[in-house]
């Protein structure tokens, strides 16, 4: 039992420290670059890609962060931007579906490629799969919303 307590304390500290080390710099970097032109170009390019899935330019930025760095960190940006912009539920839903299928493409993929998984499959196929699932669930949500509120 004291073993559990110890694991918990050490693990929590480790978890919090890693989250802190990533979240705070990302937020500062975002503040610094958010208004800049290169950042705008990258987000616009990305939003053109994910725009096909129904995401808007506002939601593209948090989605990109989550895609690259992870759900915890991307989730942080989602929480922040939801508070700031007040995204609609549909946007948050689409973003969450996409990100729960594929996130932390850098770190997580590296961990598994390091132990022998094929990079092509774990990055390429996983991303394709995420796009397909998001497209299907987005369409399903649209159909569902329409049936409940016929207009």
């Amino acid at each position: 039992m004291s073993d559990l307590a110890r694991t918990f304390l050490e693990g929590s500290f480790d978890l919090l420290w890693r989250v802190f080390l990533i979240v705070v710099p990302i937020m500062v970097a975002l503040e610094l670059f958010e208004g800049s032109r290169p950042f705008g170009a990258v987000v616009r390019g990305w939003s053109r890609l994910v725009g096909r899935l129904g995401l808007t330019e506002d939601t593209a930025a948090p989605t990109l962060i989550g895609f690259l760095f992870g759900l915890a960190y991307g989730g942080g940006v989602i929480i922040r931007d939801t508070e700031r912009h007040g995204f609609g539920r549909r946007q948050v839903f689409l973003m969450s579906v996409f990100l729960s299928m594929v996130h932390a493409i850098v770190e997580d993929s590296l961990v598994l490629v390091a132990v022998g998984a094929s990079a092509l499959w774990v990055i390429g196929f996983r991303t394709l799969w995420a796009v397909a699932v998001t497209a299907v669930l987005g369409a399903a949500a649209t159909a569902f919303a329409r049936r409940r509120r016929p207009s």
Partner: protein
Amino acid sequence: MDPSSPKPPPAGARPPAAPPTGAPAPDTPPADTPPAAARPPFFAAVRRDVRVGVRSGLHTFWILARAMIPAYLLALVLKEVGVIDWLAHTAGPVMSLLGLPGDAAVPLAFAYILNLYAAVGAMQALSLSGQQITVLALAMLIGHNLLVEGAVLRRTGMNPFLFGALRVVAGLSCAAVANLIMSTL
């Protein structure tokens, strides 16, 4: 980039959360910057951005910490009382659908309850072929750390249980499809 696309105007426009402090800008606002507010000089702007960034970073960190730590404790307790063993035992038969040995359910259960690192550790104890590692990796990459990440997701207003189920189902089916494709190639 090109103004021809029918996109709504500037997405990056900041809400006036933090009014520009400092001197009243000697300004020459570039023609394309949307906020008409006076732009503070460069260093003042950087200082303000850093300050706002640190503050919102700490705010977010606090939200995440409050969501993650209880979930992490729950995950540890679940492991302690044998839920991972039980999951691995029950899910064993499903593994054959993915072309994996029944043992592969152990790292998968570790991934679901704990995280990828624990799962990769458990995976090292098995001897798997390259294809099996890739298939298992796909299932784990899509569904992992369900409790802690579910807690984060809940903060955005989504149902963490539905999303957990989605990740398990979609992850397993992704792995199954990948296994089929790789086996026929």
